[in-house]
């Protein structure tokens, strides 16, 4: 049916739509996109210089006014993960591998037995919302020290249980990475508890990363393996993270 109103609105939008000229910037390999994306190294250098080792703001119990809104995958449906979840993650093992002298395989009981850190922090989604929650976990630095990184290690790569994308070419499991500066930051923890209870499945059970000075997508959920590497080139499309490979900043401090 011919909808005149819609037609008129469409026409007006088209006439106004000078902005389409810049749509080529959505394509990752266009020269325009590369020019715009050049901000990222400047942003990272400026923020690193300003922040140093400083901590992200922490909040009080009174600031926890709602549950932590989950985003991305909220219920991984892989058979291995389902079976493990039904058994209360008794069989879960965290693997620490790659450029390390002492590879680790740690159960949840072993992880929770390590000294933990509890922090009430604000989770900032790249979409623009924020949510405050209490996180408890083992500092990533503690686990990495146990594995004894080789001097050539530069990045910690997180491999996850959740298939974030399914296509004809197969499943894409979530992957993310941070450099060792953020990996050894005291607030960077592998969280197993949230708001005083075991980490819910929707929020990344049994173990998720917290990188408090960056955006939510850096904080990989459902982590099963941490791999230390000296390069991100062979991971995904080479940008170092699922979302970085899809046009978002790898350094997500802004």
């Amino acid at each position, binding site marked *: 049916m011919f909808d005149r*109103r*819609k037609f008129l*609105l*469409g026409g*007006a*939008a088209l006439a*106004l*739509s*000078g*902005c*389409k000229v*810049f*749509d080529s*910037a*959505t394509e990752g390999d266009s020269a325009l*996109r590369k*020019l*715009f*994306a*050049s*901000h*990222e190294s*400047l*942003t990272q250098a400026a*923020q690193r210089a*300003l*922040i140093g080792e*400083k*901590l*992200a*703001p922490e*909040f009080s119990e009174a*600031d926890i*006014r*709602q*549950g932590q*809104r989950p985003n991305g995958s909220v219920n991984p449906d892989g058979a291995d993960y389902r079976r493990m979840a039904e058994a209360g993650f008794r069989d879960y093992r965290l693997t620490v591998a790659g450029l390390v002298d002492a590879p680790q395989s740690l159960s949840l009981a072993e992880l929770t037995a390590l000294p933990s850190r509890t922090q009430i922090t*604000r989770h*900032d*989604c*790249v*979409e*623009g*919302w*924020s*949510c*405050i929650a209490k996180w408890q976990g083992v500092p990533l630095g503690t686990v990495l020290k146990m594995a004894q990184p080789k001097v050539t290690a530069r990045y910690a790569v997180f491999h996850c249980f959740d298939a974030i994308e399914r296509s004809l070419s197969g499943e894409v499991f979530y992957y993310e990475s941070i450099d060792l500066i953020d990996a050894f930051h005291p607030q960077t923890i592998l969280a197993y508890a949230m708001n005083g209870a075991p980490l819910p499945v929707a929020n990344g059970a049994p173990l998720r990363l917290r990188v*408090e*000075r*960056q*955006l939510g997508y850096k904080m990989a959920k459902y982590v099963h393996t941490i791999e230390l590497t000296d390069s991100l080139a062979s991971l995904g499309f080479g940008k170092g993270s699922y*979302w970085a490979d*899809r*046009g*978002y*900043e790898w350094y997500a*401090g*802004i």
Partner: protein
Amino acid sequence: MPQGPLVYRQRLVTRVTHWVWAVSLFFLMLTGLQIFNAFPSLHIGKEAGFDYDNAILEIGAVEADGELRGVTRVFEAEFDTTGVLGVSGGEARAFPAALTIPSKTSLATGRVIHFFFAWVLVGTLALWLVASALNGHLRQLVPTWADLRALPRDIVDHARLRFHHRGEYSVLQKLAYASVLFVALPLMILSGLSMSPGFNAAAPWLLEVFGGRQTARTIHFLTMVALLGFFAVHMAMILLAGPLNEMRSILTGWYRTEEERDV
């Protein structure tokens, strides 16, 4: 009106930075609306209320009788904004394609372009500030006591569309430009930085000043609206005061003054 001499009013650095800002603010606004579309509501406080309501603006789409309707809520008031806000071009999106860069929905691209021009804006503002402090332009923007005493008269003159074409800016001009350069743009930059989790670690006090990240986001948006208001008045004034002379002065620096007689 008798013509006065041509005076050299805007130096090269003033003209170049003016146009770089114009281009940057165009991109910053339209990519900003793209970013806003990813979470089309504004909140007051540290976080966005999902289990409670701390929103002062919400743009959404609802389906009624098999048709998508755009709904905009401002505080408690709800408006049907189908075609412009909430639903446009047959799809659910807060701001329409014509007002976002890129036109299609792409948060990643909006962010990349936004931060690129944010750096351009900050860089040229710094350059302008240093150059203007050295070349005396800064002093031309600060109203003097004599200016402030003449304020009521300048308001009346502007209301009557009687503009005085002098080498110096009128007091209303000074106040308008100074509030953009020393209030609105710094507020824009600081509220923007206060949304950055990295910058929050560097300057937690600034977050406190703004009253939390979501309030900073709301202030960022409202300052954009204020700048848009400045832009509208700026354009109107140029058209009313003589567009050719005004354009010549911001392109070449030369401005035609007029003989003034006391009346």
